[in-house]
């Protein structure tokens, strides 16, 4: 007999019926749902023993002490030892994995090229090192190296000659310095915050301004004028005109600084006028002291003196080695360019990414990113006593990286075996100060620890703080007149400090508008109208740093005639143009 279609149907029906009495269908449904729990492509966090390591954050000169939570050897979270960190510091352990991070570079070729260039250096031509963060042990090595090279020059941005003592201040006038937003270590700033009145003079309502007790909205570039008039070196009416404040306000401000002392006046770089004004207010030795520095081995004293870029004659540098692995204040490139020789100068940059001077250099050599670096930190602007803090690596640096210090020392034929250790020994030998270990928070006098222990402790998470030096004689009060610069129609002002950032910073400028993203500018509705742009409009921004596409945001807290931009390396405030696309 033959099987008909009906027979097949019956069989199938039976099978279907039977299947429902087995675990199979139900299990399959469950499993698909479970599969959606470990969706393919989702990474699995590594498990392991949780350890704690200590280091100092080397992203900015503040150099906060950092406690790292590690799984095995890998840091998975960073926190401050003496309070919180800035967002850049909190996410610093991501930097080695930044997509823009530089991993390979033509090291040999660069070395050869440098040697060759030095060899055919003319009598007047210089070999120079540009160090963005002077005051480190590395800086000393550079200076020693340059001392050993003919016409060797060590160039560094001007350092604040003084440091401030926020703890003593009762009134603080900040001329545009982001005091509460990265100017100094946040832990210090906020520990002292409740004890002083903060007056912020600034053209935009920055974070510091919005937290200040008083915000004086002044015109761009009129900070110096205000400082001078407060010191009586500039007529009040004149100052009022330049700053856009009422004369009354300036007079009151001056009185407040005198009466509600100890007063402290700061600006971004603690310029000469500001220091003089502080001296004038009788703050010397109370809220403001000379910049302390940890002892250095006597042998290093022969090092080349730091030179400011301006002091270097134009067209004189043949070989320029730029260390931007430790970022600090970026000197504008067009200034640097003036100093290079006309006929093919050689520029080598040591950096973690091509973002900065890399764009202009013949060779960009990969340097270690934050948790890989071995370095120390200069005295912070708010450090009253000398200190010695190491940024010790939390993870090993990948192969193919260059240590700029070794490179430069090699170029100069200077044997620099572990300068950090030498420095540490010198400090230990001085026998002054105390050693603070972070793990237990105990502090011991240096005299009581052996040199090796001292060194070991510094590497395991500790810092040395010396005794605060006597302020000595106050510098004479000589003011340099504020240049009467013509205020352009639209001035670009930097919103943030330019620090390398983790991909996770997208939380604050892409997934929210808390911080100004690199592709955004903010301006007052009125100036936006003048430029013919509205909120969210796409436009091009032209500054001295070049042209780039941006999205415009409206913010009525910004002085009309100012465009707020996220600072990039090499950006400097100045004339700007915003054109709608």
């Amino acid at each position, binding site marked *: 007999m033959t099987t008909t279609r009906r027979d097949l149907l019956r069989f199938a029906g039976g099978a279907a019926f039977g299947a429902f009495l087995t675990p199979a269908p139900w299990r399959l*449904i469950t499993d*698909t*749902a479970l*599969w*959606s729990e470990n969706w393919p492509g989702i990474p699995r966090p590594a498990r392991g023993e949780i350890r704690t390591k200590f280091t100092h954050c080397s992203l900015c000169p503040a150099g906060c002490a950092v406690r790292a939570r590690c799984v095995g050897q890998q840091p998975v979270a960073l926190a401050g030892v003496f309070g919180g960190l800035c967002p850049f510091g909190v996410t610093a352990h991501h930097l080695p994995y930044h997509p823009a991070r530089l991993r390979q570079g033509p090291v040999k070729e660069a070395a050869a090229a440098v040697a060759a260039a030095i060899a055919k250096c003319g009598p007047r031509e210089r070999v120079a090192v540009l160090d963005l963060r002077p005051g480190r042990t590395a800086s000393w090595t550079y200076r020693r190296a340059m001392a050993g090279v003919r016409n060797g020059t060590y160039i560094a941005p001007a350092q604040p000659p003084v440091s401030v003592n926020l703890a003593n201040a009762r009134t603080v006038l900040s001329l545009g310095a982001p005091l509460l937003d990265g100017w100094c270590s946040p832990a210090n700033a906020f520990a002292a915050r409740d004890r002083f009145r903060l007056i912020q003079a600034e053209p935009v309502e920055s974070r510091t301004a919005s937290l200040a007790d008083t915000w004086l909205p002044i015109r761009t570039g009129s900070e110096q004028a205000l400082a001078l008039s407060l010191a009586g070196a500039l007529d009040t009416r004149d100052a009022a005109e330049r700053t856009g404040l009422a004369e009354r306000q300036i007079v009151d401000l001056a009185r407040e600084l005198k009466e509600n002392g100890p007063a402290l006046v700061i600006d971004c770089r603690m310029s000469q006028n500001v220091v003089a004004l502080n001296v004038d207010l009788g703050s010397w030795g109370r809220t403001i002291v000379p910049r302390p520095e940890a002892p250095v081995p006597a042998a290093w004293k022969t090092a080349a003196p730091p030179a400011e870029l301006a002091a270097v004659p134009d067209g004189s540098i043949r070989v320029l080695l730029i260390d931007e692995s430790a970022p600090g204040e970026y000197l504008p490139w067009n200034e640097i360019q003036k100093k290079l020789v006309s006929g093919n100068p050689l520029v080598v940059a040591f950096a973690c990414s091509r973002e900065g001077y890399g764009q202009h250099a013949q060779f960009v050599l990969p340097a270690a990113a934050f948790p890989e670096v071995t370095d120390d930190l200069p005295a912070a602007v708010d450090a009253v006593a000398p200190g010695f803090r190491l940024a010790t690596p939390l993870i090993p640096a990948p192969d193919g990286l260059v240590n700029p210090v070794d490179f430069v020392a090699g170029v100069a034929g200077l044997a620099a075996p572990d300068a950090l250790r030498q420095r540490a020994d010198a400090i230990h030998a001085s026998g002054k100060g105390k050693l603070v270990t972070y793990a237990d928070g105990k502090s011991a006098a240096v005299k009581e620890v052996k040199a090796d222990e001292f060194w070991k402790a510094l590497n395991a998470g500790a810092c040395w703080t010396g005794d605060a030096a006597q302020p000595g004689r106050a510098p004479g009060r000589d003011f340099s007149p504020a240049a009467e610069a013509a205020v352009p129609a639209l001035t670009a002002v930097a919103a943030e400090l330019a620090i390398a950032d983790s991909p996770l910073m997208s939380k604050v400028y892409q997934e929210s508008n808390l911080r100004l993203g690199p592709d955004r500018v903010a301006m007052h509705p009125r100036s936006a109208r003048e430029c013919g742009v509205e909120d969210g409009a796409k436009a091009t921004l032209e500054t001295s740093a070049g042209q780039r596409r941006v999205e415009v945001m409206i913010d009525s807290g910004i002085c009309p005639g100012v465009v707020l931009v996220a600072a990039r390396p090499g950006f400097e405030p100045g004339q700007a143009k915003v054109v709608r696309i």
Partner: protein
Amino acid sequence: MDKEFITRGVKRCSTRQFVLWILPWFALLAFGLFSAGLCLVKGLNQTNMDNRFAFGLWIFLDLTVIALGAGAFFTGFLLYILKLHELRAVINSAVVIGLVCYSGAVAVLAVGVGQPLRFWFTFWYPNVHSMLTEVTFCITCYLTVLMIEYLPVVLKNRKLRQVPSFLVFEFELHKLIYVLAGVGTFLSFFHQGSLGGLYGVLRGRPFAFREGLAIWPSTFFLFILSAAAVGPSFIVLTTWLAEKISRKKLVRPQVLQLLGRISGLLLAFYVLAKTVDTLVWINRTSPDSGFPAVQYYSWKPFGTWILFAEIVVFGLIPAMILLAPRLRARSGWLVSAAALACCGVGLNRFVQTVQTLALPTLSFDKFLSYYPSWQEVGTFLAVVAFGVLVYSFSFRYFQLFPEERELQMEVVQEQEKEQLEMAGRF
């Protein structure tokens, strides 16, 4: 070629013509399925919904089509429970419309969730306090009911009748129909309500939040009422369209007028209830949760005009027309009033879903705007195309309008009579 499928005694267009008619709809369906596929494979980032506009076009679609599909249960209720036998003329088409609307809604819901593979969690770990649980349960149950109600229509097909067991089965089903109608009515009453509750319970959204009886906010009952009101209107609308497109008389005008009258009556009730509810909300509910009601309407473009349109233009006016026998008698008035009513319910669902999410709740929020992406629109269109196709096929091969045949006879007889008379003259 498909002649033997077509019901005896009714005329249907040629196969070629039919194919030409359905082809574009199939194209639309294909496009829609493609965009829905994108959303399933690549995820909901294909849509323009976001964290603040968590619901968009789709939820609006769901609420609207289900309200329009209410005709199915309500006509069933009137016919089988309240014994309004005239309505037998439209019950089949009502069932098809219901089926289309509900299956469409379920399909869109499935695309609209982030993890469709977990759909069964709702049945396995239900949270009885959630309106969405009620909705899911009722819709799925009622969809099954509709399918069973649809079966007889299918089995009556001329070809399928040839299988004897089918006939028996169909006969058995018919005994069940009253039970089904009862169950269906209960289920849909319930989930029409829970769809209303969906937004009414949102304490965090004072614009939508309503007080009510027991666990159900007032919107629960308003939704039932509005759905029951527009259901018949939508049947009037679709039947009229079917007549126009097929160029045939399908039901007696009295039936449509009856539907219109019922619709108008309920609509009037709804408008009254809605007005009372709105007043209570403006003067008590909203202020109590700290939100002065005026501010909702100061965010342009959603001014008070939207409230006016919802209650008067698309509520009171069609209700008046449908309640006036004279106007009702003219198909033009009847149909346009029905259309107005349907738009009204659409607007109401729009306000519930979209405006609620657009309005700020925190004092530093912005008023939000949202435009659906083409993938969302595509999925939306897929449902429409699906509906048209199912209806077209059912219309062609099944007997959606039992009276159609008789009406046709009458037409024929009249023609013959005329001819005879003419013959008599000469």
